[in-house]
């Protein structure tokens, strides 16, 4: 039942002479919202780049519909796989609708530059990302959150059935982060397979249907977030001791780092002889007030 159109089979990849991924395999389950998490330099962005052929795999194969991705023509891949890269440049003075329309490139040719399908897909992408009011504005005049929506719209105009997102929320404030994650969830509900690299474990657990934890170029654990995110795993992957408690809104796992809070509380405890917050047991926030 769970098939995977996009699969990595024992791929190795890296930059210059450094190998970052070594014989890694991953099935991107169709219709999933897969989120890849892991510490800095664990290879999660490299994996995403290898999946889109942005970085050619030096070993193994990335397969799309059973065929090695290296045998596809670039535009063919672009019609199936969309990518929201970490860094994109909006040309000076370009308007929102113009930028979104550039997502149609893989569907166009020298003589076929603006078909009715291009127009419909662009309009639909603008509507889906709720930027209709902004469409005539210049991209350089938008806020960070709005601009990211425009880039998402461009990737949507591409009409790829699998969308890869490389740290899409990194430079946004929390409200815009949630806003964007909800948008991705809506896209996921309408049938797009999503693969995202995220830094925020709590958001990852909340939105992912399939969570992949990576460390040192390997996959340490994967599966449904409730099963994957445990205090032990966070310790193993990030080297962070923490308490995992259920999100009061969604019930998904949430991570509360311990840090040195315990020591500090203990030293306060010596003088005040109360250390309510420092016993390290899991508790639901809301009960900890007072």
């Amino acid at each position: 039942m769970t098939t995977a159109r996009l699969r990595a089979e024992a791929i190795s990849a890296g930059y210059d002479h450094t190998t970052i991924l070594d014989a890694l395999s991953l099935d991107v389950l169709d219709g999933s919202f897969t989120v890849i998490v892991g510490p800095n330099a664990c290879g999660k962005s490299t994996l995403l780049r290898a999946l889109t052929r942005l970085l050619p795999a030096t070993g193994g194969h990335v397969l799309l519909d059973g065929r090695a991705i290296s045998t596809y023509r670039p535009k063919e891949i672009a019609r199936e796989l969309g990518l929201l890269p970490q860094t994109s440049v909006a040309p000076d003075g370009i308007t929102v609708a113009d930028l979104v329309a550039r997502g149609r490139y893989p569907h166009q040719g020298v003589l076929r530059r603006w078909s009715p399908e291009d127009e419909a897909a662009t309009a639909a992408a603008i509507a889906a990302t709720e930027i209709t009011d902004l469409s005539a504005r210049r991209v350089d005049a938008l806020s960070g959150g709005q601009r990211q929506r425009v880039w998402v719209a461009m990737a949507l105009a591409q009409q790829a059935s699998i969308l890869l997102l490389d740290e899409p929320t990194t430079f946004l404030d929390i409200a815009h982060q949630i806003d964007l994650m909800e948008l991705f969830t809506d896209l996921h509900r309408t049938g797009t397979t999503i693969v995202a690299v995220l830094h925020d474990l709590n958001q990852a657990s909340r939105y992912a249907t399939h969570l992949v934890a990576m460390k040192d170029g390997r996959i340490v654990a994967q599966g449904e977030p409730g099963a994957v995110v445990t205090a032990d795993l966070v310790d193993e992957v990030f080297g962070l001791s923490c308490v995992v408690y259920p999100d009061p809104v969604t019930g998904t796992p949430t991570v509360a780092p311990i840090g040195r809070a315990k020591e500090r509380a203990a030293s306060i405890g010596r003088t005040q002889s109360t250390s309510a917050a420092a016993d390290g047991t899991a508790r639901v926030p809301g009960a900890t007030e007072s």
Partner: protein
Amino acid sequence: MTGTRTRPEPIDFGAAHVVMRRGSLSARLHLRTLVVCLALTVAVAVAAIVALCLGDLPLSPAEVVAGLFGADDGLSGTVVREWRLPRTTAAVLFGLALGVSGAVLQTLTANPLASPDVVGISSGSYTGGLIVIVLLGGGFAATATGALIGGLATAAAVYLLAYRRGVQGFRLIIVGIGVGAMLAALSTYLLLRARVEVAMTATAWGAGSLTPVGWPQLVPAAVVIVAALFPLVVLSRPLQQLELGDDASHALGVTVERSRLALLVCAVALTAVVTAAAGPIAFVSLAAPQIARRLTGGAGISLAAAGLLGALLLTVSDTVAQHALPVPFPVGVITVVIGGCYLVWLLVREARRTP
């Protein structure tokens, strides 16, 4: 149309566009760019006719048009077709080539400073031509070949020196300026070593002039220019995508490095062939794209508008150089004077923008 089909709400692009569709052909054109291009075409035609009118034997526009279409077999027909037309055609065509070449380089590097004269390609052509003149004795074809090879070799050297996992705009410019400075030193050395007559020939060519261009010199240059412009019709689409950054354009199905290399080769060939035929003509490839961008007001630089503006600039500059001053000057001198001021202004503005 029965009216049952609901037309989707038109997309607001923030500027008027013309959509043309016929069968499987379709295009969406920025209206203002289209109007600017038409106006520039008219301006270039007018400037060319004015250039053909002026000279020791002043002609009326009517005589020029008659001469152009072969209706006049007399003296004025010969003057127009044999004496003045090659030079004016060269001004239009070379200006077009320089404008397009600059537009491609500036778009690729996302930097208004990146024109072929700044990144050392013109210097390379000049040095190549100079080597032929000083060491092998010159001749138009040999000099032109030397200049073409010099320009292409310099571009290759700059590209390879700036290459690190792909070529990044700013690194290309810095390396290009360095290479250009070295080549300028080499050129000076060659001139100092040469005999006086040879040095004078070299200097005359090095000033950039359309005077020596007749039909025999123009035809091969025109062939190269058309051959380099033709692939750009196809490559202008990937060029536009490359503005979005390497990752984004790759994700949209552009073969990034291959497209960039092809674009660079076309741009370099355009500049090198002009330098080969007429010597280095500064400023046109630097300024034309930026002026075109301000006129069209759209995103990015329209290659057509930049080319037409280059044609206009060079035709007008050459007319000024020939007729408006007490003594005729090489056109390169005029463009260098204007270009110098423009370059200083551009550098100051860029320096203020990037902290």
